[in-house]
């Protein structure tokens, strides 16, 4: 752009998400780091054998879950990318459901499936969440990879398997790498399922930070562990960003319709494997519904507070708290996420480094433990002129932080896909910068904006890590209430938890289906 005004506007726009991130993410996290570095906590924690056992378990279970998710995701990616079959669209939608299911729901589902599951159930539950990330990231690239390279390899005498390993795999490897990095991140910082399935027995860094803060009140120790985690997360994100960059530059992409065919011969084996994966993904969901329907007591009890007043408010009120908080969080996150996406989409030209850095900074909240952030809020927000800690906005703020990266990831690819010359054409026809944005960007991206909002809303509704830290006992959200119900004895509590989980799950499923109908491609992870 030749005139200075839009650049200034862009800069001011950038200040909105950057300012929010600074105040409600960087400051709390840095404070925690400060506390951790301040005392003798760090040396104590770093020299303790327990810490390294904890780290080993965290990374080990994440690696295992990532491996399972990749193995399960690959046949799905193949089917979604290469097969012209009825029901592929449905599969795309179905596999997205686990990804947005509230962690407490998944935790409970796996608990009812594997009552004494331990490590196995933690690994499976984490993988369950992330199969969609692998399938959709890899499938997305695979679908647009030229099939003719593979055909050329076959004509040169390569077997089907050889053609796959020597031509296809190198082409989609960046997507597999980037998906694996993100999945690893999600699994390593996974909180809800680990807490519910591992309890005090199997702890990761994430749950340990929580337990030390809440149960032991060992702030320096928790802070030291948070530092460890932040360092690890940044390392993984850098690897992911590197893989993404290679993917964007290295390939000649084609339309999906050109590459999808009806499967033949041995390809049906892969289709069968994909079908098994889908069934495997459905098992916990169906199991949970069946379990909740064995008795109607839990459903009826939703109006109350559980056995001997386990909850301070009736469950229905927790549900209404959830709705309110998720709505506020979504509005705020849309404001931040869309602004950030607009700035990032404009920055790309000629400023790759700046864009890449901002991109990475926006991804950080996705990886840094929500528990760390929640903990950081408690430490820092008292210093603000208005005390947010007692405000009903505290939970929405934290949730907004968690869902903003998702919104950016949903909207940004759409904005980036818009040819710059389309905007320039509108400009030469007399549209000013704001009008160009409205007539071109908004007109082309509105579906993805709605999808992003829906997506964010569902995730906010199920958010557990930060919310469990910040929600006051007299104003729990539904996931927090569920966690409390199952942490207390009493058959009625259990029944209530199952019923409430099914409610959350139904809301999630409806939202996901609606979003998928609206846009064919949600998210780029």
């Amino acid at each position, binding site marked *: *752009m*030749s005139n200075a005004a839009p650049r200034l506007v862009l800069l001011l726009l950038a200040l909105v998400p950057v300012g929010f991130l600074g105040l409600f993410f960087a400051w709390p996290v840095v404070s925690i780091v400060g506390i951790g570095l301040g005392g003798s906590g760090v040396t104590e924690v770093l020299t303790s054998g327990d810490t390294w056992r904890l780290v080993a378990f965290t990374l080990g279970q994440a690696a295992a879950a990532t491996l399972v998710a990749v193995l399960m995701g690959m046949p799905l990616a193949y089917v979604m990318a290469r097969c012209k079959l009825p029901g592929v669209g449905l599969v795309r939608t179905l596999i997205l459901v686990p990804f947005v299911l509230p962690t407490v729901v998944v935790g409970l589902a796996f608990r009812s499936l594997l009552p004494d599951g331990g490590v196995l159930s933690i690994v499976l539950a984490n993988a369950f969440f992330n199969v969609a990330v692998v399938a959709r990231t890899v499938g997305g690239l695979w679908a647009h990879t030229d099939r003719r390279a593979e055909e050329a390899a076959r004509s040169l005498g390569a077997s089907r398997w050889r053609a796959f390993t020597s031509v296809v795999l190198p082409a989609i490897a960046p997507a597999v790498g980037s998906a694996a990095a993100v999945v690893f991140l999600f699994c390593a910082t996974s909180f809800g399922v680990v807490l519910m399935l591992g309890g005090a027995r199997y702890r990761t860094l994430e749950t340990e930070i929580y337990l030390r803060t809440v149960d032991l009140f060992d702030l320096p120790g928790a802070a030291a562990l948070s530092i460890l985690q932040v360092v690890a997360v940044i390392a993984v994100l850098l690897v992911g960003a590197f893989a993404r960059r290679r993917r964007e530059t290295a390939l000649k992409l084609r339309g999906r319709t050109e590459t999808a065919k009806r499967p033949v011969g041995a390809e049906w084996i892969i289709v069968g494997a994909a079908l098994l994966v889908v069934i495997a993904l459905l098992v916990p969901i169906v199991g949970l519904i069946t379990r909740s329907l064995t008795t109607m007591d839990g459903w009826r009890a939703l109006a109350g507070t559980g056995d001997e007043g386990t909850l301070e408010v009736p469950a229905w009120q927790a549900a209404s708290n959830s709705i309110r908080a998720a709505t506020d969080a979504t509005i705020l996150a849309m404001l931040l996420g869309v602004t950030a996406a607009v700035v990032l989409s404009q920055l790309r030209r000629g400023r790759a480094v700046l864009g890449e850095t901002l991109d990475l900074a926006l991804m950080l909240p996705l990886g840094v433990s929500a528990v760390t952030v929640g903990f950081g809020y408690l430490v820092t927000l008292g210093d603000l002129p208005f005390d947010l800690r007692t405000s009903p906005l505290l939970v929405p703020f934290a949730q907004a932080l968690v869902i903003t990266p998702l919104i950016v990831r949903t909207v940004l690819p759409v904005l980036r896909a818009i040819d710059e010359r389309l905007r320039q054409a509108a400009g*030469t*026809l*007399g549209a000013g910068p704001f009008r*160009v944005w409205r007539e071109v960007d908004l007109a082309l991206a509105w579906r993805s904006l709605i999808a992003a909002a829906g997506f964010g809303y569902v995730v906010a509704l199920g958010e557990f890590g930060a919310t469990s830290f910040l929600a006051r006992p007299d104003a729990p959200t539904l996931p927090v209430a569920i966690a409390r119900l199952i942490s207390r004895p009493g058959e009625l509590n259990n029944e209530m938890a199952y019923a409430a989980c099914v409610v959350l799950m139904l809301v999630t499923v409806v939202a996901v289906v609606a979003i998928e109908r609206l846009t064919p491609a949600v998210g780029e992870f």
Partner: protein
Amino acid sequence: MALELQGLSVRYGSFAAVSDVDLSVADGEVVALLGPSGCGKSTLLRAVAGLERAAAGSIRWDGTDLAGVAVHRRDFGLVFQDGQLFPHRDVAANVAFGMRMHHVDKADRSARVDELLKLVGLEGYGERRVTELSGGEQQRVALARALAPKPRLLLLDEPLSALDRALREQLAVDLAALLRATGTTALVVTHDHDEAFTLADRVALMQAGRIRQVGPPDEVWRHPADDVVAGFLGCTTFVPARADRDLVTSSLGEIALPGSGNGTVLLGLRANALRTDPGGFVHGEVVQRLHRRDHARLLVQLSGDGVPSGPVEAVAPVAGAPEPGDAIRLALDADGIALTGLAV
């Protein structure tokens, strides 16, 4: 002069994409910027549109400097190589877009849309989705869209390059007629000689960010400023010669070339500068033969004093074209010869 560029330079970092360009376009005139890819011609066009910042020099319209005028206030239409139609709008809405930005009321808009669609030969296409159009149709819609708000200047960036050959030739003729009929002032960027020569009143030859020559098509074709320009315009072999009252003598024989005057000249030979002729002055041996649509193209090793040392191109009629190894005689043909000089 309507458009006037003075000392215009555009830089990308330390790379000068356009250096010190002077160029003018008169009211109603069509000027083509012709040059190889990467010569800076598109950058120049984008600078005129207001999409690139000038590092030095000025762009004026009717004497007014456009330096501080934003893209959307310049009132210049722009047509891209691949249309860049708005995919979410139908044909009519694409064409009406500029008028909507200029607050033309609805009735006038739809009348003008019909008028323009008729002008570009797409009557009745208004409600089609642009994604369903062929490449040629898309370019026609892009043209209609750019013309609709009656721009002061139309900028065309390789408007026909994305189309296949037959369509390109047809559309070039249509476009030339349309620009004349509407009296549009236009600046066209192209790397294709035929396109430039079909469309333009004047051709500006660009190379490495600089304009090497500006003139009417036939003058540029027959009198390229130097051997570099001549090379871009299809001359593959250069032969020094002497002119004496428009009669030019060289190692390839004598030929009358109007405008060559007296003194030392340089002849630029295109593929059709030498023809087989039993009584021709030049002797040679056929190295290779290629069949073309309406003639045979030969590669001939010449023999004789002072002739070019490498093989040169020549043409022969399809019937009875000589075989490789045949000894033949060739004569010069004025149609394939450009008069030029050495680049300084």
